[in-house]
C-alpha cells in the first residue's frame, strides 16, 4: 500500500487538471447549456449529411443522372458540377466528404443553389431570413406581451365579463389552424368583402422601395407584414392568455402575495414585481419553444400571403427540388430552435435566482 501511493499520485496530475476543467464547464450553467446547444446542432448537421447521401436515389445522384441523361454531360463533368453545387466531391470517401462538409459549414458555406446557379445558399438565406424573423418574431412578441397582459387582467377579474369573453375567444382562436385564419383573411376580407388590398400588401415591401433604416421603409415593411403578423397573433394569443391566467391565479394564492398586501405595498407594485414576475416565469420555456419555431412555422402563412420570407422560399425550394437550399434552410431552422432554447434558458436563469444559484454562476 505504501509503495503504491507515489506511483498512483504521478498520473493523477493531468487527470486532475482534466477533471477540474470538466468541473468548471459543468458547474457553469451557461457553459453547460452552450455545449449542449452546439452538440445538438452538430448532430443535426451530421444527420442531414448522411441521410441525404445514404438514401437510395439520393438528390446528388439524381442530379448527376439528370445532367447525364438530359444535358449529355459526361459522368465526370456531371459529378464536378454536382460537387460545385453541393459543395462536396462525390468521388471522395464518405468520411472525407463529411469532413469537408463540416469545414464548409463552420465557414457558413452551405453550397450553391441548384435552381439559380451561381447563387450561394447562404445568400439565399440572408436575403429571405430577415423578413421571417421580422414578421414572425414581431408577431410572437406582440402575441406574448398582449397575451400576458390580458391573462393577468383575466386573472385579476376572475369570473368577470371580460374573463368569460376572453376565455371563449382565446380557446376559439387557439383551436383554429393558422393557415385557415390566413385563408379566411385573404378570401373573406380580401376578395369577398374587398376590405383589404391584399394584392397591394403582398411581398415583404413595395416595389421600388429602397431597403434602409428610415421611417418610410419601416412603415412600408410593417404594412406588408401586417397580415402575417395579425395571423400569428390571432392564432397564438389565446394560448398565452390562458397560460398566463392560470399561472397568475396560482401565483395570487402564494403566501408572499398576501404578505406583500399586509406590508402595505401598492397594488401596482404587487402586480408587477410580486405577481407578474413570478407568474410569467413558467411561460418562458413555452416562449423558447415558440421562438424557435418562428423560422419553421411560417411556411404556409408566407405562401398564402405571398410574403417573401424563409418559409416562402422553402416551399419554393421543395417544389423545385433545390436540395442545397432545402438542406441549408433545415439547418437554419434547427439552429433557430436550438439558439432560441439556449437564449431562453440563459434569460430564465437571469430572471429566476433559484436557477442561477443551482447553476453556480
Amino acid at each position, binding site marked *: 500500500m505504501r509503495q503504491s501511493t507515489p506511483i498512483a499520485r504521478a498520473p493523477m496530475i493531468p487527470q486532475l487538471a482534466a477533471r477540474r476543467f470538466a468541473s468548471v464547464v459543468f458547474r457553469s450553467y451557461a457553459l453547460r447549456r452552450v455545449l449542449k446547444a452546439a452538440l445538438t446542432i452538430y448532430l443535426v448537421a451530421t444527420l442531414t449529411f448522411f441521410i441525404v447521401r445514404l438514401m437510395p436515389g439520393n438528390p446528388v445522384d439524381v442530379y448527376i443522372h439528370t445532367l447525364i441523361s438530359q444535358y449529355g454531360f459526361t459522368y465526370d463533368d456531371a459529378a464536378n458540377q454536382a460537387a460545385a453545387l453541393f459543395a462536396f466531391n462525390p468521388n471522395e470517401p464518405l468520411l472525407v466528404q463529411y469532413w469537408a462538409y463540416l469545414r464548409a459549414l463552420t465557414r457558413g458555406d452551405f453550397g450553391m443553389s441548384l435552381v439559380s446557379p451561381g447563387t450561394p445558399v447562404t445568400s439565399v438565406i440572408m436575403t429571405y431570413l430577415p423578413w421571417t424573423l421580422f414578421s414572425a418574431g414581431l408577431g410572437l412578441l406582440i402575441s406574448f406581451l398582449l397575451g400576458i397582459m390580458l391573462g393577468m387582467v383575466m386573472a385579476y377579474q376572475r369570473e368577470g365579463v371580460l374573463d368569460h369573453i376572453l376565455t371563449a375567444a382565446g380557446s376559439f382562436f387557439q383551436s383554429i389552424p393558422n393557415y385557415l385564419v390566413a385563408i379566411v383573411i385573404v378570401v373573406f376580407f380580401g376578395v369577398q368583402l374587398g376590405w383589404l388590398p391584399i394584392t397591394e400588401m403582398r411581398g415583404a415591401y413595395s416595389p421600388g422601395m429602397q431597403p434602409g433604416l428610415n421611417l418610410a421603409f419601416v412603415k412600408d415593411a410593417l404594412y406588408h407584414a401586417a397580415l402575417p403578423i395579425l395571423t400569428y397573433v390571432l392564432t397564438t394569443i389565446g394560448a398565452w392568455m390562458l397560460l398566463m391566467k392560470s399561472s397568475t391565479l396560482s401565483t395570487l394564492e402564494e403566501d*408572499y402575495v*398576501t*404578505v406583500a398586501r399586509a*406590508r*402595505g*405595498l401598492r397594488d401596482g407594485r404587487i402586480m408587477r*414585481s*410580486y405577481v407578474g414576475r413570478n407568474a410569467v416565469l413558467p411561460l418562458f420555456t413555452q416562449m423558447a419553444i415558440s421562438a424557435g419555431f418562428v423560422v419553421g412555422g411560417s411556411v404556409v402563412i408566407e405562401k398564402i400571403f405571398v410574403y417573401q420570407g424563409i418559409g416562402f422560399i422553402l416551399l419554393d425550394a421543395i417544389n423545385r427540388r433545390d436540395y442545397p437550399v432545402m438542406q441549408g434552410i433545415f439547418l437554419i431552422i434547427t439552429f433557430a430552435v436550438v439558439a432560441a432554447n439556449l437564449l431562453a434558458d440563459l434569460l430564465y436563469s437571469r430572471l*429566476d435566482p433559484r436557477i442561477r*444559484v443551482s447553476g453556480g454562476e
Partner: protein
Amino acid sequence: MAAWQRSSASNGAPVPVLSVRNLEVRYFTRAGTVQAVRDVSFDLHASESIALIGESGCGKTTLGLALLRLLPKGARIVDGEIRYRRRDGQVIDVLQLDEEEIRRFRWQECAMVFQGALNALNPVLRVWDQMLDTARAHAALSRDEVRERSERLLRMVQLEPERVLNAYPHELSGGMRQRVMIAMSLLLDPQIIIYDEPTTALDILTQRAIIEVLRALREQLDFSMLFISHDLPLAAELADRVATMYAGKIIEVGDVREIFYNPRHPYTLGLIKAVPPIVGELYDISSIPGTPPNLIEPPAGCSFHPRCPYARERCARETPPLYEVGSLHTSACHYWREVKLERQVVETGD
C-alpha cells in the same frame, strides 16, 4: 360579556391601542355561510401581549386577517368595530378606512407575520429589495435610513445583515426567513404586531430560537403583540394575557397565570391537559374528545357542549355570556364554578 372591558375602562386606564367590538366575519361559500368569527370583543393595550389560543379552524387566523382587512375573497366583516388609537392619540375606525388609508395602515401601524415562513418572501427579489419595497410603500424613510434600520433589526434577530440583505429567500433557511420577516415587521416601528403561528413550520430548536428572539425584542422595543397559536405553553411564554377561542368565539380571557393555574372553561382546561408536562405523570394527558364543530351550523347554545364533560341540558339551550370569574378573568361557561384544574401544572418559562 363586557365585564373585563368595563373594569379596564372604570380603572381609568389609558385608551387601548386596539379595541375590537362584536366582530363578525363570514365566509360565503357554496356549501353555506361559514361563521368564522362570532361576536368577538377584546382590548389590546399599549405594550401588552395577548395570546390567542385555539384549535385549527377555530377562526383565529381569520380574526388576525380581519384586523388588517386582508380577508380572502368570499369573506366579509359583516358587523362590529375595530378601533385603533394612533400615536397622536386619535382613535380611528379601521373598518371605515378607504383603500389607500388601509394600505398605509398596514405594516406602518399594524404588521403581521404569517405562519408560512418558507413562502412569505418573494423568491425573485433580494431581501434588501423587499425591505426597501416595504419602506417605500409608506414613503417614510430614506434609502440610508432603511439600510441602517434593516441592519440593526437583522442584528437584533441574530442574523448577519450583510449576508442576509444580499441574499435571495431560497438561500436562507426556514428559521432565517422567519427572522427576516420578524425584522421586517419592526421596520416601520408599528404599534401592533400580529404573529400568526410564527413557529409552526419550523423544527423544535428553531422554534425555541424564534421565541427567544421575540422575547428579547419585546424587552428592547415597545410594541403590542397579538400572538396567535394552538400551543398554549408556547404562547404563555410571550403573553401577558391569554384569550381562548372556540368555534369563532372568544370563550375565556384572563391573565396568563390565572388561565394556566385556574382555567374556568372546560375547553381551556382540555387544552392545558392535552399538552404533556415536562415533569409529571404522563397518564394525566388527555385529548379533548370529538372534533371541532361545523361553523356553517354551529351547535345551539354553548358551541362546546357536544364535546364538554360538564355539559348539561341547559348548555344546549342557552348561549353562555362571558361571566366574570375572577379579577380580569372571564369565561363563557354556565358551570365555570365546577371547572377546576386537578393536577399540578409544571412551571414553565419564568
